[in-house]
């Protein structure tokens, strides 16, 4: 089978999964929950309720309702968001670039630190350096994200500030006053990129200073995971016969490690980092909330507080679709990277 055939087959296999996903979210939104919630308040006249039910199609049998639900999903009519005071999809799309910006920054930090730490840990196996890195990695997977975020926020934006040290902003994406003085047009929606394109370095710098703490918070968790994967994968590869052979031929250690071992050790790392990125793009619910970073995750937490189920379920579907398609891309890249895989 050729690579493109594999890609097509893998994509077709997604269809039943996505249908299942929509059945599950439909079940949650229409059957477990009262779907009228978003449209009815205590001040709605009771005689109007049947009319609203009729308009939403709630008087029809469930399979017809499911068909309506699918139609609405496909035609991008995802209902009204009580929290954002606008259609759900519009609200999510407006916030999506902020989430992307945060996800990309956190992902870059994770890769830049996690991979070298993992390699170092494997090469210095069972030395003090290895133990220290392993403890850091274990802490990374054991730390509550909200605690890390709040502690960083307290230390770097409050304690540093009160002690006259250079501090970082504690919340938001950019200083609104600064933004008003130096307006940035929305091109991609990525604040840092937009301001750089327009040569607005003051806003760009401010946006960067806003993203540091939330992206470090997010990255710390994933660094733990990725370091552990790199370490064990690297140790596994270094045990292989071909590495011993290369060493026996008298090739320098550095060339053996970086030219022969690293390439193969990176294959499982590609999968795990793809999964991570998919997860990050789905929105960092807790981190965005703590740093008041206006992404999709923050909107969803506000929606939880106000019981706005339309927004929550739309976000669930969207995050799931993003996750599934990033996974698909990862699988295809994986097959391309590792020709040993028999699809």
């Amino acid at each position, binding site marked *: 089978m050729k690579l493109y055939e594999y890609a097509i087959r893998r994509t077709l296999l997604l269809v*039943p999964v996505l249908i299942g996903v929509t059945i599950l979210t439909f079940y949650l939104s229409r059957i477990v929950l009262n779907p009228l919630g978003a449209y009815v308040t205590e001040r709605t006249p009771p005689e109007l309720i049947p009319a609203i039910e009729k308009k939403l199609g709630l008087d029809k049998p469930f399979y017809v309702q499911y068909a309506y639900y699918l139609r609405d999903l496909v035609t991008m009519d995802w209902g009204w968001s009580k929290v954002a005071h606008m259609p759900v999809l519009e609200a999510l799309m407006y916030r999506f670039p902020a989430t992307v910006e945060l996800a990309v920054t956190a992902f870059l930090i994770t890769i830049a630190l996690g991979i070298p730490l993992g390699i170092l840990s494997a090469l210095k196996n069972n030395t003090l350096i290895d133990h220290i890195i392993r403890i850091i990695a274990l802490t990374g997977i054991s730390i509550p994200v909200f605690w890390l975020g709040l502690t960083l926020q*307290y230390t770097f934006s409050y304690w540093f500030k009160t002690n006259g040290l250079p501090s970082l902003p504690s919340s938001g994406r950019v200083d609104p006053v600064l933004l008003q003085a130096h307006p940035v047009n929305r091109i991609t929606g990525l604040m840092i990129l937009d301001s750089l394109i327009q040569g607005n370095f003051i806003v760009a710098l401010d946006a960067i200073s806003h993203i540091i703490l939330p992206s470090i918070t997010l990255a710390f968790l994933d660094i733990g995971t990725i370091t552990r994967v790199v370490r064990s994968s690297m140790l596994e590869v270094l045990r292989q016969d071909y590495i011993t052979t290369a060493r026996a031929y008298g090739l320098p250690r550095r060339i053996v490690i970086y030219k022969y071992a690293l390439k193969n050790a990176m294959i499982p790392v590609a999968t795990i980092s793809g999964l991570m990125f998919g997860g990050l793009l789905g929105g960092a619910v*807790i981190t965005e909330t703590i740093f008041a970073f206006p992404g999709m995750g923050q909107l969803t*937490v506000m929606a*939880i507080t106000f019981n706005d189920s339309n927004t929550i379920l739309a976000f669930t579907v969207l995050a799931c679709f993003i996750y599934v398609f990033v996974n698909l891309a990862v699988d295809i890249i994986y097959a391309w990277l590792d020709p040993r895989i028999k699809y």
Partner: protein
Amino acid sequence: MSRRTGRELFLMDVRYSLWLISRNKLVVSGFVLVAFFIFLAIFGPLIVNPEIAQRVDYPNQLKPPSWQHPFGTDDIGRDLLSLIILGARYDLMIAIVVIASSLLIGIVLGSISGYFGGVIDEAMMRITDIFLAFPGLILAMAIATVLGRSFTNLMLALIVVWWSGYARIMRGQVIAEREKPYVAAAKILSIPNYRIIFRHILPNAIYPMLVVATMDIGGAMLTAAGLSFIGLGPSPFEPEWGQLCSRGATYLFQAPWIMFFPGITILFASLGFNLVGDGLRDVLDPRLRR
């Protein structure tokens, strides 16, 4: 030399495992941490009087750490140390119940799927695909919201999210065992299928599941505390650690200790389980035993 009996061999194996564990200081400290938190969870209400600890005491609100209140007091004047001790119950229980239930569901469904194969297998694996397609935290969040805010619903939401991974691993294990001669022998003796699965295959297939499950207890605890932090946990007056942290977030700059101590407690508890999981993996992984 006399031949060793099975019992002697088993004891040797246990002793060797214990030696492997004791050799690694990190794993030993993991066991100590876990034992400590389990002790708190069981005996917490005997160490601290819940009635006194939960009493609202406004004159004492937002007091920084002192000899009288080593971790300080919260916004309604309750002693944080006592609350954290009482909270051990909630966080450990939720993590252990979620993992144990998911493990049970995963083992049963995974072994049925792997043993019988065919249509049953295909159908079950497509269902697990659906659950694995969601980012875990987000599906749990949606379910917990829809069911309504409570301790039980939080556990339910996490179980719904967690079981599918175990079903997958178990299925793989059972498929690997299914073709072995002892299963064929059991079939010839016309031992009923359920007995073959649960008495013969299960003991051979379960170890990797136990390692994964131990390592997941920390993760389940973090996820539960996180959901509780964003407001999907038990009622605001129960001393669950994530809940306490979320109270602390409101007073972050005024009284950082309210957020700090419960959070670092979660860190140590989940670190303990992760260390034990790591150690168990080392002991059970035959490649590392040589």
